[in-house]
């Protein structure tokens, strides 16, 4: 594939990702990942010290699905929405069919009463498997700049 086409596909995957989350079409979210995958949210405090603890860590597409079950039917929380911004997306390395990518994300959270806040900001460290079909995340590690979470985190970032 040409590099501009790869970039286009990767960019498109990112657009679909934020669209699905920000539109709360949670059920589609696991399908942006390969069956065997890693999705992990870790704070920079732990990441930089080499501490393995994450805020959320899904080691299979099943675990992604379970997070959707959690937020749909299990957990108690106040309804809210995310709004993503992404900048600085770059493909850092391509190895066969896998692209290692990186980007800056920002999530604004809006609560029921309208309160908005900068909920999370940081980087996406991705491994993306390129097509024949649409590209999929093999790995997405979300490194959040802030060491703390306001109230709770129930939606993936």
């Amino acid at each position, binding site marked *: 594939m040409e590099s501009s086409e790869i970039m286009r596909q990767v960019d498109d995957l990112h657009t679909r990702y934020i669209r699905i989350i920000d539109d709360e079409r949670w059920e589609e979210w696991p399908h942006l990942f390969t069956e065997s995958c890693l999705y992990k949210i870790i704070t920079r405090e732990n990441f930089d010290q080499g501490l393995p603890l994450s805020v959320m860590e899904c080691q299979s597409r099943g675990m992604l699905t379970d997070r959707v079950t959690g937020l749909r039917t299990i957990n*108690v929380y106040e309804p809210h929405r995310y709004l993503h911004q992404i900048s600085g997306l770059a493909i850092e390395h391509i190895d066969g069919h896998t692209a290692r990518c990186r980007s800056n994300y920002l999530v604004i959270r809006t609560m029921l009463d309208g309160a908005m806040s900068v909920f999370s900001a940081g980087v996406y460290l991705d491994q993306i498997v390129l097509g024949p079909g649409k590209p999929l995340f093999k790995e997405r590690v979300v490194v959040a700049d802030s060491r703390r*979470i306001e109230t709770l985190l129930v939606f993936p970032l």
Partner: protein
Amino acid sequence: MLEWPAEGVSRAPYRVMSDPEIYAQEQERIFRGPVWNYLCLEAELPEPGSFRTTSIGDTPILVARNKDGAIGAMVNRCAHKGAMLCVEAGGKRQHFTCPYHNWTYDLTGELCGVAFQHGVGGQGGMPKDFDLAQHGLERVRTASYQGLVFGTFSSSVEPLETYLGPGMTAHLQRVFHKPIAILGYHHQTLENNWKLYMENSRDPYHATILHTFYATFKLNRLTMDGGITVEHGGWHSINYSKGATLREGSYEGTGIRSVVEGVGLADPSLIERKQEFEDGITVAIQSLFPSCVNQQIYNTLALRRIEPLGPLRSELHWTIFGYRDDDPALRAMRLKQSNLIGPGGYVSIDDGVIGEWVQRGIAGSGAHSSAVMEMGGRDIVSTTGSRATEATLRGFWNGYRNLMDC
């Protein structure tokens, strides 16, 4: 100032959750009063010169291991003009040098150097009678139990072990029976008074109802063997259950919202557990007055410390650990199960919001009313078998009333 309802500890007036004067009194009478405040873990201070910053109520605290290997604590405030000496969560230092005018303290808080003490070229400097020994950092008395470091401003509080009592120390021995390894930290701001979180942490009643995950996937139900232990007049408590003893019934079909029917886990490996402790206890929450929680949920182990941030806000600091001798499989299991806890945990997500909903619920006319805690009676007793009780909460309010003199 604060008059308590005639019913006693089965009531708690909501006013204590928002009044700024009561908050200020709590700082004086509770956090700086005759209590032992959990500060950090010895494991976080591996070597001479290791330090951690933490807090006792509103007061910033510095804990350090000195050259002799002993651990001490002091207020993180320069004796000159008050600047914080360290802002990082932790690290290693030879001594503490204040950024403002370079006053330097040794690891025990003794003042050992004052920049330009003798002036420059014979002029200026400190008065001849200025005595370094009189200007050390404000010291905080510390004591450790099984690797947990506690501190107090009080000279009259009983020794730490007596303060905790035999049931509490036994449980700490159970968990901290071998060297631990820290797996990471969580920090979580809560839009509620610190006491709403401490109540929550020791409330067996909510555990299997609010936390649908517990009941739905049978991690914790009241229809398991379990119990609550209260001690030191209920200041401290443990709430525990034994997963292997589950009896069906009492949840299904009762209309209690806490069991979601027809839901399964696509990847049930999340809730595979290893029976680590011989007593069969699979979930145990120990709550130590005033601000510490020691948690075992399956194979996740954590200490939690609540930091008050004014009457309406607080921050919960989580230290997640395993043991140093965990094999890779057990370590991996702990990390996978960490999906259950923290600000994004299947179980503890719910606790993130519930305190805020109480805080907002008790606004306005709430200042005239009180929480009602009569589940399991109106006294403060340990029970084995049943956890349908709020004795642990009555115990908390007993401690609160003792100290606040109300």
